[in-house]
């Protein structure tokens, strides 16, 4: 990438250890990332993967054990949180309970000694942006969870930060409100043109909202890419498994040419992939269930026996046994009564296009 503008946030080989000596816990292990200006960037991973630690390092609540962080091209090592051009939306919202909504939103501007007229105008503008006009005089305790969330957002945005950090901001909301706030966050990100760093463990949320996602596990970033990259072309077993459902097959590469490789899963079951691997290597293959094609009497494909058929409304999941020992699932859209097309005990033919078969690292 030869961007002229500096990265909104650049994380260079950052490690973070808590504790010391043999008891030290490595929360982040040489993580490097570059966030583009104006992008909605998501840190996705299970709890304990280091995503919140990374956010706290960017905010300045923690200092890295090694490596450095640059915000808008400037190194921020040693800068306390109150000197960094970033603002945070906390998981618990952390609204000041003894202040009104307007006082909460005005807090950052007051701390930076902006003129009163500017503060009043910005507060009104921000409350309008998050659609909370008219609630200026309320206390946080008098607001619903969704409204508190909006106040937290307005309070952070009022400072016009270079980067907005969001720490699982939607996890305390119920499903309906969460969907609403997801759309709201996207709208606000477009309206403000800010860089958002969004931490979540919810893969659905990450896929629908992000421009790019970094999937984290065990203190490392495994893959960075667009939601489509992450879902369609996972590079790691963990990524394929964590995001959506997937079939993971152990196989040995037996041939390869310009168009890809052939891998043997079991006797008589050979799968073609569009990726290449050296002949003789052991590989793990990931295949999304919805890319699997099932047929009763196709001349080609791998033979499988249907174990169970589960109806999911929009689609039906067919669990199978491949080659007598490997479990495998396919998802069939319920357009033509797929739920009735297969029954446990049936023998079917299974295939997948080579571009749907991904070689993933462990």
């Amino acid at each position, binding site marked *: 990438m030869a961007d002229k503008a500096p990265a909104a946030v650049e994380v260079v080989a950052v490690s973070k250890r808590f504790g010391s000596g043999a008891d030290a816990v490595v929360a982040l292990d040489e993580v490097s990332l570059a966030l583009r200006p104006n992008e909605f960037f998501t840190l996705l991973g299970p709890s304990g993967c280091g995503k919140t630690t990374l956010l706290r390092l960017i*905010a*300045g*609540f923690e200092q890295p054990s090694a490596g450095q962080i640059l915000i808008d091209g400037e190194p921020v090592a040693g800068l*306390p*949180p*109150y*000197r960094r051009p*970033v*603002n*945070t939306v*906390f*998981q*618990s919202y*952390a*609204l*000041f*309970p*003894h202040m009104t909504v307007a006082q909460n939103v005005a*807090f*950052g501007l007051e*701390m*930076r000694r902006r003129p009163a007229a500017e503060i009043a105008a910005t507060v009104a503008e921000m409350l309008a942006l998050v659609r909370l006009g008219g609630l200026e005089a309320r206390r946080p*305790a008098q607001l619903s969870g969704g409204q508190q969330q909006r106040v937290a957002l307005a*309070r*952070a945005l009022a*400072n016009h930060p270079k980067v907005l950090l969001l720490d699982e901001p939607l996890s305390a909301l119920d499903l309906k409100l969460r969907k609403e706030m997801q759309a709201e966050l996207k709208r606000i990100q477009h309206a403000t043109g800010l860089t958002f760093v969004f931490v979540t463990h919810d893969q659905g949320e990450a896929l629908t909202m992000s421009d790019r996602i970094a999937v984290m596990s065990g203190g490392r970033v495994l893959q960075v890419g667009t939601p489509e990259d992450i879902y369609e072309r996972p590079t790691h077993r963990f990524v394929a498994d964590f995001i959506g459902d997937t079939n993971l097959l152990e196989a040995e590469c037996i041939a390869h040419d310009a168009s890809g490789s052939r891998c043997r899963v079991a006797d008589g079951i050979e799968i073609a992939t569009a990726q290449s691997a050296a002949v003789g290597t052991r590989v793990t293959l990931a295949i999304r269930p919805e890319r699997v094609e099932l047929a009763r009497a196709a001349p080609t494909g791998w033979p499988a026996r249907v174990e169970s058929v589960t109806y999911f409304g929009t689609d039906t999941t067919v669990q199978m046994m491949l080659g007598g020992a490997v479990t495998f699932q396919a998802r069939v859209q319920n357009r033509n009564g797929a739920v009735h097309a297969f029954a446990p005990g049936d023998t079917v033919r299974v295939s997948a296009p080579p571009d749907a078969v991904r070689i993933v690292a462990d």
Partner: protein
Amino acid sequence: MSPSSLRFPGLRAVLASFFVYLYLPIIVLVVLSFNASPQATIWTGFSIDWYGRVLDNPDLMRAFRNSLLIATTAAVGATVLATLAALGTQRRQGGAVDAVNAVIALPLVVPEIVTAVASLLFFIMIGLRLGLGTVILAHLVFCIPFAYLPIRARLEGMDAALEEAAADLYATPAATFRRVTLPLLWPGLLSGLMLAFIISLDDFVITYFVSGPGATTLPVYIFGMIRIGVSPEVNAVSSLILLISIAFVAASWVIGRLKR
């Protein structure tokens, strides 16, 4: 089986006699403080003369002023120290913090007579002249745990993210303390202050040991009066102290329960 399903015959009677045992003497004291008779224990008619006598007794009023001065100074001093201690141990864990908490709470379980004798010997040893100053010092020390507990409870209940949010919104540590921590701590501070005040106001044993001439407090003065004979004046002044104590404890409780 819930505890409420346990029923013993006569439980009500036992409970009633327990409350009688607990409060009857106090009720008798308050009633007799309105007795017209100079005999403290024989009722002859209603009067508020004894309250007038109390307010006209210059020695008693001086003792009362001493008590107020000591309690105010000791309570404020103890609250400041307790606040610093609570902030110092805030959101820290481990053996050191547990030890600090134990040491701060220790005066609660040390027998008062031991503290009294120890304080007296200590003051004599370092050559402090007994007087108001020594009483205030001694009170300040035993008031600290009473002030510390509500303040610490309030701090513990505070979301750690609030202070981080303030820092995130460009507040320096000093501004964070002034604008966020202190206002949220306020009910705990007042609660601790009032508790310390009333504990100091009530104290007898330690005061008796470490007060010198001119430093007589109200409880010590009342003890002196009793030795001459129980007069209705003693009943009246005791009732007044009771009133002040109840008012303070009630205020402390109400403030402690204020919404966050």
